[in-house]
């Protein structure tokens, strides 16, 4: 469960670990690895997918300025990080992408344009693929809830964010417990939930009388729950839509989440350029032998 360190070990162990589970493919040297690529994408609307297609140029604009998603029709679709990882771990020709915070050593994360995906590279700008984690609040937030938000954005809160493998969004200074009591409900995106749970636990250390409930469902439900007043704070791993903000809620980014491009550990490829990733996901490049 110690995500921060597992992220680091992944990059090193990626290629060396492969030897432990050797199969013919593992022995193939870079250059003669071939086979049809099986690209795996996330569902339409997903925040992860949105960031991924935008940053890799898979999304283009047509003459009228409308965005067009050029992801190939034949890409497998999944709506869950764990299915994405399990699939890639079980199929040597697969390629996909997951949140940096979820990455573990069952799969291999690729360097993109020479940069390894990690908290540091995202922070210094050398690794560009990331998306925001948002919280959604409505006007008239209760005092405790507001205090919790304040905590999240504080130095202490942002430290929790960094400790768990996400990238801090800058902070608004130190937090001091106000000795409040009450209950805060948080609901929404499953991607944001793990870090939110950590934040809630850290906050409770400081405010033992406050109870924080974190409901894990999905981004849209998070936003609608906040709008309907079912929860105090919504979580979304995508940008808010205009139709949502027009209903009286505002979004705040609490962290950045790096997105790692992953392949099977038997796959000898360690690095791709962003163009290659784009051409794989738009269906132009179809065979692994074409990207080495």
């Amino acid at each position, binding site marked *: 469960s110690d995500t921060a360190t597992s992220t680091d070990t992944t990059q090193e162990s990626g290629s060396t670990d492969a030897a432990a589970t050797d199969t013919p493919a593992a022995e193939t040297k870079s250059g003669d690895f071939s086979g049809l690529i*099986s690209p795996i994408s996330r*569902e*339409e*609307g997903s925040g992860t997918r949105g960031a991924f297609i935008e940053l890799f140029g898979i999304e283009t604009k047509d003459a009228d300025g409308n965005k067009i998603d050029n992801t190939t029709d*034949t890409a497998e679709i999944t*709506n869950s990080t764990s*299915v994405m990882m399990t699939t890639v771990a*079980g199929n040597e020709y697969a390629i996909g992408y997951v949140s940096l915070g979820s990455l573990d050593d069952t799969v291999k994360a690729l360097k993109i344009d020479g940069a390894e995906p990690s908290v540091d590279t995202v922070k210094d700008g050398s690794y560009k693929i990331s998306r925001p984690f948002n919280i959604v609040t409505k006007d008239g937030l209760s005092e405790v809830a507001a205090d919790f938000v304040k905590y999240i954005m504080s130095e202490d809160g942002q430290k929790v964010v960094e400790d768990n493998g996400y990238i801090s969004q800058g902070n608004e200074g130190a937090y001091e417990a106000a000795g409040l009591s009450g209950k805060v409900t948080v609901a929404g995106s499953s991607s944001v939930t793990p870090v939110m749970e950590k934040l809630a636990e850290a906050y409770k250390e400081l405010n033992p009388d406050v109870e924080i409930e974190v409901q894990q469902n999905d981004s849209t439900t998070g936003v609608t729950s906040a709008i309907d007043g079912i929860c105090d704070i919504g979580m979304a791993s995508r940008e808010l839509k205009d*139709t949502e903000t027009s209903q009286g809620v505002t979004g705040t980014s609490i962290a950045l989440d790096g997105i790692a491009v992953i392949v099977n550990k038997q796959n000898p490829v360690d690095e791709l350029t962003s163009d290659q990733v784009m051409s794989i996901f738009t269906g132009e490049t179809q065979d692994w032998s074409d990207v080495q």
Partner: protein
Amino acid sequence: MKEVREFIMKCVFLLTACVSIAAVVLICIFMFANGLPAIGKIGPLNFLLGEKWKPMNNIFGILPMIIGSIYVTAGAIIIGVPIAFFTSVYLAKFCNERLYKILKPAVELMAGIPSIVYGFFGLVVIVPIMQKVMGGSGKSVLTASVLLGIMILPTVIGVAESSIRAVPDSYYEGALALGATRERSVFFAVLPGAKSGILAGVVLGIGRAIGETMAVIMVAGNQPIIPKSLGMGVRTLTSNIVMEMGYATDLHREALIATAVVLFVLILIINLCCSALQRGNRQ
């Protein structure tokens, strides 16, 4: 006093009978109110017969999913129903006490395993096998059908077995006394008496197959295109709803609920067909 109680309880029973109707009506209202406007906006033909599903570009065609659902459900029935049928006959009429005491709880256990476990089982065990056998990524119409076929087993077996047991023994004995083998006696004299129960089991199984999502979603590939072969990935109506509901907003969300409306109508059609079939059988 007693009559009053009788009357009240009759009303209570009637009321409970109406609960399932009320539930369907409520769910109908909910779905139609949320889904129909979207069909209007998209255009019924564009929606039902459109072959492209690109919600981000405002293209909402669910034909691939309709066909996908039909393929996968049919596949599940072709794979699951015969296995369930023969197993239930075996459980009801052929296996001895001791074996039954092991087999029955096993089948009941199957019913209690959550879909996500089936899903991961499919992903980790069945998909790699399919990769080897069929090539490709291993996520396909066939894989989804196999997994669903497995998942409907306990429902169909449970219902079919108890209805086979309910058939009077006199049919069985009568057939044996004519020199029929045990198999012939059971299959051609006993089973006709259990037809309605077996069919009820199959209908419940079909319902489970159509409605199942969490597992299918993990092994079907979910590409929104009409599959041209058993080895190709497929997206069902339910997968479509479950996958995208989490991020969908506005028209996209309504279109997903409209997908549920279509599914609902599809189930209704299947059930009407089944009951017509049953009526035809009785004559």
